[in-house]
């Protein structure tokens, strides 16, 4: 590759090779985007974590390239969002073509006043490199390269992980094993667990090319284009003038042949024209699947990301949902490790994230059925939708080239306290219990965006100064402390005050003076009230941590 050289991380002889080591609270299998996000989250909380990975570098090839707004917001909390955004290519607009005509255009973030765009495109290797750099800043994180998990022995109060290295094997004893080792998950296989679902009978070629071009920074998707008849194609810009091109090939295509440059080049020439000046950086042929494990938690072995669930790539719901898995898991595991929440809090990880996985699988299956129709009549309806879309607005809503990743609203979560006040806004964008917190521009001591003040631990977001110094002090002294962030109002000892710079926080939270929102450490709303009441907040925190 011309634009990227994979870093080589040094293998170090693990001390356990020479003498049995102590027991670790958390071991993570896999140093991909999901395992690294988990490691950073544990590390920031001061929980010692060992990450084992069978390789000694980051992703080879660009692979996952679209990082969604919610994943970026999580990375902001993990201290590496800015690098990803600075290096990546932000985009909000997608265009869909049928043959050679534009039939549909969508804007995924039509309103201003959010720190992060709908999406940033960045090659997975850059993404992982930035996460590795961040993980290395944290004393509690130990990354072990060329450490391959070859055995897993769960027992009642921990897990013995057998690890192979260039110097031989050793055993790593831990309380919890977090498995983020990808769609083929060796750990899942070692344990004889399955992920069930659907395999799609289609093949896609993905090619990364290096090219100077003034194509706009948008997602362009073609159905049946003149340059690639009867199939679909996708063009996406990445960092460093690298462009991702997907060609649908059909099930009959020979993956070994299609990977050869002499097969790829004519396809690219047909698409980009004879004058385009480009080099092929990387190419791969893939098939895809939609499936998940029945349960993500198996006692002390907990699965996250592709190891637990895989979706087709249309919709960017793979890495983005994996990062949300760890966002959901780590704070819960921290409380359980500290003895501040019962073990069953971890069952809610399973409940909430299998729900999210089902939503992702549903969306991605529907997109796949539209892009890869399984029958003649399905193809006819697909083409009917596309041919109506240009002149009839209703049909544009049916065009499905991927329903792009949005965070799950955990409306049915047992951790939510149902609304007591009936006058709160509901509807799709409302901050109902279970919704991820909306961002808004603010002015305050720690940056210009509301989300920067929320999460990590429990946060009570109050509009005005209704919580008062007694409430602020009491919540700070709880066994599970909760800090108070105040939007407007007079200064209160112990509370952080931000100003609602453009009135958007009030609007997005349907707030009045006195309204308070309780946010979980992962920035999901778990309760809200029209006025502050200390016992209600305590009860809601107890509920959100299974301490009731």
């Amino acid at each position, binding site marked *: 590759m011309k634009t990227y050289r994979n870093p080589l991380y040094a293998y170090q002889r693990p001390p356990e090779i020479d003498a049995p080591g102590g027991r670790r609270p958390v071991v993570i299998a896999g140093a991909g985007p999901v395992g690294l996000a988990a490691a950073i989250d544990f590390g920031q909380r001061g929980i010692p974590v060992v990450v084992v990975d069978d390789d000694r570098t980051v992703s080879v090839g660009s692979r996952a390239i679209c990082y969604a707004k919610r994943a970026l917001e999580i990375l902001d909390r993990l201290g590496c969002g800015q690098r990803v955004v600075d290096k990546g290519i932000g985009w909000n607009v997608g265009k869909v073509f049928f043959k050679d005509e534009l039939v549909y255009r969508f804007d995924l973030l039509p309103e201003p006043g959010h720190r992060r765009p709908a999406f940033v495109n960045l090659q997975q290797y850059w993404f992982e490199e930035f996460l590795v750099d961040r993980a290395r800043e944290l004393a509690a994180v130990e990354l072990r390269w060329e450490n391959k998990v070859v055995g897993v022995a769960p027992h009642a109060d921990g897990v013995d992980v057998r690890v192979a290295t260039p110097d031989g094997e050793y055993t790593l004893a831990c309380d919890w094993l977090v498995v983020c080792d990808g769609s083929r998950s060796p750990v899942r296989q070692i344990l004889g667990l399955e992920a069930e679902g659907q395999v799609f009978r289609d093949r896609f070629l993905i090619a990364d090319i290096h090219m100077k071009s003034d194509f706009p920074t948008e997602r362009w998707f073609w159905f049946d284009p003149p340059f690639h008849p009867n199939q679909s194609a996708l063009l996406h810009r990445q960092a460093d003038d690298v462009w991702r091109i997907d060609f649908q090939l059909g099930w009959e295509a020979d993956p070994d042949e299609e990977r050869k440059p002499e097969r790829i080049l004519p396809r690219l020439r047909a698409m980009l024209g004879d004058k385009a000046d480009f080099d092929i950086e990387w190419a791969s042929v893939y098939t895809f699947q939609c499936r998940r494990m029945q349960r993500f938690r198996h006692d002390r072995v907990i699965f996250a990301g592709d190891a637990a669930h895989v979706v087709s790539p249309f919709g960017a719901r793979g890495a983005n949902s994996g990062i949300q898995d760890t966002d959901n898991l780590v704070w819960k595991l921290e409380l359980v490790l500290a003895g501040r929440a019962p073990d069953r809090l971890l069952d809610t990880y399973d409940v909430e994230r299998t729900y999210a996985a089902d939503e992702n699988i549903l969306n991605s299956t529907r997109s796949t059925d539209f892009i890869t129709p399984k029958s003649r*009549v399905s193809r*006819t309806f697909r*083409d*009917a939708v596309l*041919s109506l879309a240009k002149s009839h607005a209703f049909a544009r809503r049916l065009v499905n080239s991927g329903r792009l990743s949005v965070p799950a609203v955990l409306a049915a979560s047992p951790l939510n306290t149902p609304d007591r006040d009936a006058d709160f806004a509901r509807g799709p964008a409302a901050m109902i219990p279970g919704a991820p917190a909306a961002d808004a521009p603010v002015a305050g001591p720690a940056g210009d965006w509301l989300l920067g003040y929320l999460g990590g631990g429990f946060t009570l977001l109050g509009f005005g100064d209704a919580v008062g110094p007694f409430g602020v002090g009491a919540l700070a002294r709880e066994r599970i402390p909760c800090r108070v962030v105040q939007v407007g109002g007079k200064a209160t000892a112990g509370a952080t005050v931000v100003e609602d710079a453009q009135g958007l926080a009030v609007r997005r939270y349907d707030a009045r003076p006195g309204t308070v929102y309780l946010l979980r450490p992962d920035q999901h709303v778990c309760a809200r009230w029209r006025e502050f009441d200390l016992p209600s907040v305590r009860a809601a925190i107890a509920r959100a941590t299974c301490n009731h």
Partner: protein
Amino acid sequence: MAALNTEPNLPSPDDFYERLIATHRGLSDDESALVNAKLVLLLANHIGDATVLAQAMEAARDGVGTPSRGEAP
């Protein structure tokens, strides 16, 4: 809740039928299939009501092939 109206509702049934057949004149089977699909989509959007549409799909499928799986929407 609205229900699918299967009582006579077309003011001039023979005119409608003639027009439906005429719409397909000169088309190959594939082209006709496409026109029918577009017609279904246009009418479905006009109706809008999910219950009515589900009842219509059920009534159309009734007696054709093996019973459908009746997947919930």
